[in-house]
């Protein structure tokens, strides 16, 4: 029972008081961040990365803190979805469809409990899936050469563009911006600097953390200034919270199905939690058939997507840890963190840093239990936080961003760059161009390019090498389908009406 002894190692790392403390703090902050409209898991993790560096945390502690935030945000997103009809983060979008109607019918408490339990089920099953499948996937990685990796990165960009946004063309533009930025710096394949204009600051390329904090946090501040921080009032009253056992039993099937779908969606690079919750909701709707009252407050309509998006969060960790390919925007940020800590996620991570991986898995299990406790009996605390005025919150975010990035790179140049990215993010969002593909482009662009060029070196310039294995062909097919299919599918699966503020997410 290798898994059990590995888990024991993990718990021995995770159960030290400091790590446990970080997990609790991370869960708490994560839930708040998730609950606040506009701040999702990727912003939350991006904002807290500099903090982790400022505190001088080692790799395991930093990872525990940030994944707790990640899981916490996945839980927290549902709170504002249900109470405000504003998704706290993008994956919580589907939860608004039935959550808010339930709340208006005076069942806000029930909705919060059901979604909380669904989140727990999804996250728990996904973490168990991570334990079972991650080592298996790690072994598969020896089958991945330059051609396969190139196809894999292509798949990440294709599915992200196809599913993660409303408009393929805009996703392509965003991806190209990211890929272009990624070209700055030393070219791995020739050893020559590109687009540096002789500036030594640019030789290492653009630090993706600077880009992430700029595009998410700083952009958020610009939008806040523009809207004069329009209100955050709760429209629905929260009565006493009780446990609706009957509903929990009724929705258990939805939770299990949602978890399965979400987990698989999470594993697919670039698909992530939004896709997970979307597919889980759609699947549940078709399973229920005519008996469902979806869109009018059906409990299954919150159980399925919440289980789905939390399971996807766990699933997305698998490709990130074993292949070094993030399955979502948030895991992209986590990947950046790991690389900054000199840990290269990939096939050898489980071998080289077992204490990091299993410590992480153990702390995810702990975080889940902590989150269940926080999110059911203590849910009222988070509801209160939603009433903190944004003019208190956002300046704080700005301060953390500046201090954090400066402590990370020690360079004034990077601060200017961060603000520049903030301005860019503002215009991109005004143009409704998604920013996540930009980040992915910066993060993965070099790797994709290097793998393409490595494939050409290995094969002496024979382009058919790119399609020379079953894995490569499968990935190419999936990438093309993932990009093209949503264009046609969208006609059949008419997207749910988007709440006004979801655009700003």
């Amino acid at each position: 029972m290798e898994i059990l002894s590995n888990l024991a190692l993990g718990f021995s790392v995770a159960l030290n008081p400091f790590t446990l403390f970080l997990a609790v703090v991370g869960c708490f902050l994560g839930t708040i961040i998730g609950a606040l409209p506009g701040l999702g898991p990727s912003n939350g993790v991006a904002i807290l990365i500099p903090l982790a560096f400022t505190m001088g945390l080692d790799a395991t502690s930093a990872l525990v803190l940030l994944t707790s935030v990640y899981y916490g945000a996945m839980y927290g997103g549902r709170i504002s979805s249900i109470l405000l009809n504003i998704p706290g983060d993008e994956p919580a979008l589907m939860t608004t469809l039935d959550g808010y109607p339930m709340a208006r019918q005076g069942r806000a408490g029930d909705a919060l409990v059901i979604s909380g339990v669904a989140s727990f089920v999804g996250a728990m099953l996904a973490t168990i899936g991570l334990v079972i499948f991650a080592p298996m996937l790690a072994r598969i990685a020896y089958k991945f050469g330059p051609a396969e990796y190139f196809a894999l990165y292509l798949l990440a960009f294709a599915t992200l563009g196809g599913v993660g946004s409303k408009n393929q063309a805009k996703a392509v533009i965003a991806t190209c911006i990211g890929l272009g930025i990624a070209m700055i710096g030393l070219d791995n394949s020739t050893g020559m600097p590109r687009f540096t204009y002789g500036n030594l600051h640019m030789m290492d390329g653009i630090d993706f953390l600077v880009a992430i904090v700029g595009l998410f946090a700083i952009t958020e501040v610009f939008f806040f200034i523009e809207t004069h921080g329009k209100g955050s009032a709760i429209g629905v009253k929260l009565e006493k919270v009780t446990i609706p056992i009957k509903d929990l039993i009724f929705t258990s099937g939805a939770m299990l199905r949602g978890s399965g779908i979400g987990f698989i969606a999470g594993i697919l690079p670039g698909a992530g939690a939004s896709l997970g919750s979307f597919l889980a909701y759609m699947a549940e709707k078709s399973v229920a058939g005519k008996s469902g009252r979806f869109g009018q407050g059906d409990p299954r309509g919150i159980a399925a997507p919440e289980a789905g998006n939390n399971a996807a969060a766990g699933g997305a960790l698998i490709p990130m840890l074993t292949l070094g390919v993030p399955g979502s925007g948030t895991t992209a940020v986590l990947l950046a963190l790991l690389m900054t800590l000199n840990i290269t996620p990939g096939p050898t991570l489980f071998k080289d840093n077992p204490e990091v991986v299993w410590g992480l898995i153990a702390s995810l299990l702990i975080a889940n239990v902590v989150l269940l406790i926080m999110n059911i009996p203590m849910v009222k605390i988070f509801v209160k936080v939603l009433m903190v005025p944004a003019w208190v919150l956002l300046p704080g975010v700005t301060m953390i961003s500046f201090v954090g990035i400066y402590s990370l790179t020690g360079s004034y140049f990077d601060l200017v760059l961060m603000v520049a990215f903030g301005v860019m993010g503002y215009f991109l969002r005004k143009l409704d161009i998604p920013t996540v593909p930009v980040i992915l482009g910066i993060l993965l662009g070099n790797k994709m390019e290097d793998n393409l060029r490595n494939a050409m070196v290995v094969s002496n310039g024979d382009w058919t090498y790119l399609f020379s294995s079953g894995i490569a062909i499968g990935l190419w097919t999936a990438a093309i389908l993932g990009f093209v299919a949503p264009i046609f599918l969208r006609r059949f699966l008419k997207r749910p009406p988007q709440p006004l503020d979801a655009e700003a997410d």
Partner: protein
Amino acid sequence: MRMTLLKALGTSALISLGATTAMATECIAPADAGGGWDFTCRQIGKLLYDLKLVPNPVQVTNMAGAGGGLAYANVVNERNTDADLIVAASSATTTRLAQNAYGGATADQVRWVGTIGGDPGVIVVAKDSPFQTLSDLVEAIKADPSKVTFAGGSAAGGFDHLKPLMIMKVAGFTDARSVKYIGLNGGAEAITQTIGGFTQAMTGDISEITGFIRSGDVRALAILTPERVAGFEDIPTAKEQGYDVVVVNWRGLYVPKGISDDAFNAWATKLQAVADSAEWKAVMEANGLAPFTLVGADFQGWIDGVVADTTVLSREIGVIQ
């Protein structure tokens, strides 16, 4: 308002930095915390103080950027006479200087104090590879260079790329450009590609692949040290196989050019004392470093040779014109 505050913060940080350097030795690690240069500064700095070679604890400053280029430019342009400053360096520093990757800076703009340990270069193949000895590999490349690709953890033209090229050169193979190499993000990725059979050999440092050698997934064909290394006695050196190539990723220090000869010699003596200490030997053992000590004028001469060789080789493969 916020910008003013930030400027004030920055200024105060600079003032405090200036104040501390006047009193204590400062060691610049030209990279973020956690990497090899940071390790060099922290370990040597700690031993300098523990062995009472310096009066105050050594301050470590992380100055990341341009693969060490920012720190180099800073030392050359702004700290040229600071006798209390030492800077961590390694093979990567001289390789980049030789390839003009530091924006026009050259290796003679600082003084090279010494190296006190190194990570030996190594050439490995997968356990099921047909190549049993270094000669097998070399002859295969000579017969048809397009059949063999090396994977390494540095960019093209980087330190890992140069290792097989130096071996091929000694073997009388002059067409360096035809030797295929793919640069990956670190030794772990390079070894994975080699085990997976996508590349035929891997070039790296021994510390990167110790786990894979122990697990039997790979076979080391040659270690690039003058003699066999303790702990890896069954790996033959390239030299004993007839290829006189020594490539060690050394860890050492440079100091500003403008300090007096006395100050330079004092640093050389101190570094030698660190190298001779039992504490340093324990540090090396714990971190997979092999003894590789060259100090003072010897080191300066060796560096000149390395830079010249690297320049020639880089020109042959087209990394510099």
